[in-house]
């Protein structure tokens, strides 16, 4: 026992000596990294909370109790509650088709799924204005003297349904900017897992749904949760795209980020930071959950390897 341990230990000690830096260099690198991160990440985070409570907890609660703030919070939740499940279903479908089957044009499809990430948020808003706005595709059509489907134009007008500068536009823009999140986590994961387990389940007589619920879903649950967490964070925090389509009517079409902007433009800095602290808190929860999910995933992988 002992001799084996020493022979294994010796090269290890040599390895550490020849493939590591002198302590001074190590210390300097750690210091540079920590100073950089404190300045860019830690300081802004602390600053948000300090500013939020600059006028005391009473003022903080007052800001959040304001009807406009409350309506912004509700609208933000509405957008996230719509966008996250839809993009979740999309992500699972896209990953199933791409990872479990072979077809031509797969790489093009993968690039198309990533597209919303490379489009500026302002342009993401602009495209919906171009489709649904008064001068847009649908708008021109609805306002035409002789529409082809008068019932549609009448129905939309009768029910006073507006898309741009109203809630549906905000929800649509939020969906657009968060399309890739779940798909992006699931596709590489399901590709790596292959299709053997599902094929075995099918051969043993499981139906398609049974295969998905009992075999695929347990395998991808951590990846799915990871994607949902990131998707939700972006959905609740989206600013640029929503800013274009919202019209920024206080108490009606302002989300939390837009309400922050409105308060900031009013020079109500403490109020703006009070609202911002809600989103900063959400960001911290997101980071915490993300780390926890990564840990759970690592644990699951270790169990699978040891089995």
């Amino acid at each position, binding site marked *: 026992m002992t001799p084996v341990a020493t022979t294994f230990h010796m090269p290890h000690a040599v390895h550490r000596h020849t493939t590591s830096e002198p302590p001074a260099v190590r210390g300097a*690198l750690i210091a540079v990294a920590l100073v950089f991160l404190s300045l860019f990440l830690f300081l802004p985070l602390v600053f948000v909370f300090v500013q939020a409570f600059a006028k005391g907890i009473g003022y903080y609660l007052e800001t959040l109790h304001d009807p406009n703030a409350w309506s912004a919070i509700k609208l933000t939740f509405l957008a996230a509650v719509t966008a996250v499940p839809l993009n979740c279903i999309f992500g699972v479908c896209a990953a199933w088709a791409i990872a479990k089957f072979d*077809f031509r044009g797969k790489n093009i499809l993968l690039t198309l799924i990533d597209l919303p990430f490379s489009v500026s948020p302002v342009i993401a808003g602009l495209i919906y204005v171009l489709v649904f706005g008064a001068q847009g595709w649908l708008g021109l059509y609805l306002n035409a003297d002789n529409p082809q489907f008068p019932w549609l134009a009448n129905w939309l007008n009768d029910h006073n349904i507006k898309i741009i500068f109203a809630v549906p536009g905000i929800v649509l823009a939020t969906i657009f900017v968060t399309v890739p999140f779940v798909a992006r986590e699931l596709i590489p994961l399901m590709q790596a897992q292959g299709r053997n387990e599902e094929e075995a389940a099918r051969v043993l007589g499981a139906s398609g749904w049974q295969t998905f619920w009992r075999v695929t879903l347990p395998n991808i649950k951590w990846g799915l949760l990871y994607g949902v967490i990131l998707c939700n964070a972006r959905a609740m925090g989206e600013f640029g795209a929503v800013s274009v389509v919202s019209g920024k009517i206080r108490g009606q079409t302002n989300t939390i980020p837009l309400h922050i902007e409105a308060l900031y433009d009013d020079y109500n800095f403490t109020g703006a930071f009070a609202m911002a602290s809600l989103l900063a808190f959400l960001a911290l929860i997101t980071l915490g959950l993300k780390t926890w999910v990564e840990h759970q995933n690592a644990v699951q992988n270790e169990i699978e390897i040891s089995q």
Partner: protein
Amino acid sequence: MAKRLSRPKKIRVLPGFKLTLGFTLFYLGLIVLIPLAAVFWKTSTLTWPQFWQTITMPTAMASYRLTFGASFCAALVNVVFGLIVAWVLVRYEFFGKKIVDALVDLPFALPTAVAGITLAALYSEHGWVGQLLTPLGIKVANTQLGIFIALTFIGLPFIVRTVQPILEDLDPELEEAASSLGANRWQVFSRVILPMLTPALLTGFALAFARALGEYGSVIFIAGNIPMKTQITPVIIMGELDMFDYGKATAIAVVMLVVSFVLLLSINVLQWWTNRYNTHNLA
């Protein structure tokens, strides 16, 4: 032909191909592709001289220079500091490492508007950082330096998160071999480690650069949006939209979209290169 017929027909054991692919294409088409096509439809209502005049107007040209320059510098600074952060997180042990590792993703998780007002207030003349810089004659708020700082904040995680996994998987035997052949630590780093990290660094750089080009929320508060000086391209688009000049807004959007598509394509090529490099190393 005969060969083709004689090949056994592939049997799909798993169900749902048509359903899932159909839904994927339908959803992408409805949410992403048709609305994006509207940009090109709207541009086609402009004549060629109108389009050219819009995209080359002086405020737009100044905004391209600023957006590209600031994004490039920010991504470059992030390559250096991102590499140091990734290196420290992978190779060294220190107190609070796990928290630091989790915090690196803050720019992904923190909404851009929050980052925007926070950086603007921190670097304003009376802010925590601004009041230290003012006596030195450095002005950050309402300057191009401010834009650079906001874009550096936004881009940091891209470099760290692309380099980190590659650094973790590096085979220590390569470094041992190099040092046993007489290379000093710096030579091992610059001649052995750095070349293996280059594809990942380039990918991270491209991702951070692409993100910075389109960034809006975190920049507008600190930038002050002074025409010809601190107006980034998305702000120009926003300005045209506020005046309901959708044609002009769309023309500039087309320029940005074309640049983004080219970048997206090069990122995909780079990532393919990174993966090949990586699997090659593992093999």
